[in-house]
């Protein structure tokens, strides 16, 4: 028997369901459109020469090799500083820190670190690394600046990875006379490593995409060659994209899209690597 009440309930159920699915589609449409548009417009610009040559004529001709290499150097430089610091702070905060005002304020600071606008990091880097430490406008200054920004992420992911290691393991180790540090070093860290690496890869992918902070600490508009030392200036994909898109009149449209496509591939591939590591680990845990 279909009563009026039942009909009404089914109707409202269907309405709600439709609304939710429409909202979901609206969420993914922009992502798809962006990716497809970039591929459609940029694919024609991609060639071996484009990827392996330095730019000429203010970027209108030639390739983007220095920007690609600069971006990879940046990612590497960022993680070299951000990962060890992040892991060590993560270990301290989870394993050693007592719950007191100091720890709580450190935690608060880390949460807020993630919320600081990126250009503020840039100005911080300019003031501290470029000017105060005399590292100049350089790869080193930019890496350190991006590392400061990435710390929030590496500390947080390290901490979560360490916390996810079951207490039973630690107890089992301590109960046979291992010291706390031995327990961390030989039991907790190996278990937490995949989580830590996932966080590191995501931090690198974010560093690859940053534009504002590197603008003021060392990214160059145009360089004929690759940086030879950490104290050299460098090109980077996001900043290159900004300049060719906004500051070079008569720039072929396909080149602009081409740069965007390369940047997208770099960032997305790192995100995919992080996802794969996470899935692998989850699978291993399930099989165990």
């Amino acid at each position, binding site marked *: 028997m279909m009563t009026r009440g039942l009909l009404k309930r089914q109707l409202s159920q269907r309405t709600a369901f439709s609304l939710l699915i429409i909202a979901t589609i609206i969420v993914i449409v922009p992502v798809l459109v962006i990716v497809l548009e970039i591929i459609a417009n940029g694919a024609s610009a991609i060639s071996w020469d484009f990827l392996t040559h330095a730019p000429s004529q203010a970027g209108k001709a030639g390739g983007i090799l220095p920007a690609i290499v600069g971006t990879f150097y940046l990612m590497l430089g960022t993680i070299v500083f951000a990962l060890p610091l992040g892991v060590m702070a993560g270990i301290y905060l989870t394993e050693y820190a*007592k719950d007191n005002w100091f720890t709580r304020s450190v935690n608060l600071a880390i949460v807020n670190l993630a919320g600081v606008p990126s250009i503020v990091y840039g100005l911080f880097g300019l003031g501290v690394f470029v000017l105060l430490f005399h590292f100049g406008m350089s790869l080193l200054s930019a890496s350190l600046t991006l590392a400061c920004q990435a710390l929030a992420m590496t500390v947080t992911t390290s901490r979560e990875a360490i916390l996810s290691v079951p207490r039973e393991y630690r107890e*089992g180790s301590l109960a*046979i*006379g291992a010291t706390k540090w031995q327990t961390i070093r030989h039991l907790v860290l190996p278990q937490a490593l995949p989580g830590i690496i996932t966080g590191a890869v995501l931090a690198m992918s974010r560093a690859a995409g940053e534009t504002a902070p590197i603008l003021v600490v060392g990214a160059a508009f145009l360089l004929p060659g690759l940086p030879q030392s950490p104290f050299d200036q460098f090109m980077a994909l996001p900043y290159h994209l900004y300049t060719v898109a906004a500051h070079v009149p008569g720039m072929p449209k396909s080149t602009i899209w081409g740069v965007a496509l390369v940047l997208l591939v770099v960032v997305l591939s790192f995100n995919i690597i992080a996802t794969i590591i996470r899935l692998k680990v989850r699978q291993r845990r399930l099989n*165990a």
Partner: protein
Amino acid sequence: MKMNSVLLNEKTVIQSQTKLKTEAVSLYYGSFQALRNISLEIPEHAITAIIGPSGCGKSSFLRLFNRMNDLITGVRVEGLVELDDIPIYDKAIDVVELRKRVGMVFQKPNPFPMSVFENVAFGPRRHGKHNLGELEDIVEKSLRQAALWDEVKDKIGQSALALSGGQQQRLCIARVLAVEPEVILMDEPCSALDPVATLKIEDLMRSLAQEYSIVIVTHNMQQAARVSDMAAFLMMEDDRAGVLVEYGTTSEIFTNPKDKRTEDYITGRFG
């Protein structure tokens, strides 16, 4: 000091040294008192069972002896706990060294996520043994002692997590044996196991009791009656603090309890 001659598990009469001793021990978690005024002496080379209803502080009591309670913030111990007449809560005591002498097996088997070999070698490695031949000897000896060698000798390099629950628990016992302790604390070691695996562990405990002093917390009255030489019955008082109601040889506790509460508990009237 010597204990009186006691009838151990109705099998043999031995003169036994006191291995562990508590004197007027109270334990607090913050302002909550978990144990009150417990005094008893645990003999060497015997199995002592701690029995009592849930929440009476059995595990807390057991963890006094390897200072595992220290890991909990806000914990406080009053009174005296001694191992071989040495007060183990003394400032001069190295907790790491203590835990090497007083090993512990947990309720849930907790093999490390590594190979069988690495599980057993974990303790010796941490205590500075790195010679592979020496480690192999220790691993084999410990696994034999834990009655596990024949079952795992062909999969020594495989993940310990692939073993059955009962094998995992015997592996955890082997892991403890590998650091050559004097005392083995067992916190309900069979509660996660099936009856067959339980009997295997009980047999193992009996054979280990020749060389080691074993203290076991158990919910299972039959188990306590089957394996232990001495039994201590703990109970909560009205403020939920655990007290020692009765302590004696297992045969006394189970056949002729002096306290009405012990009798009620072991005959299944509560708990």
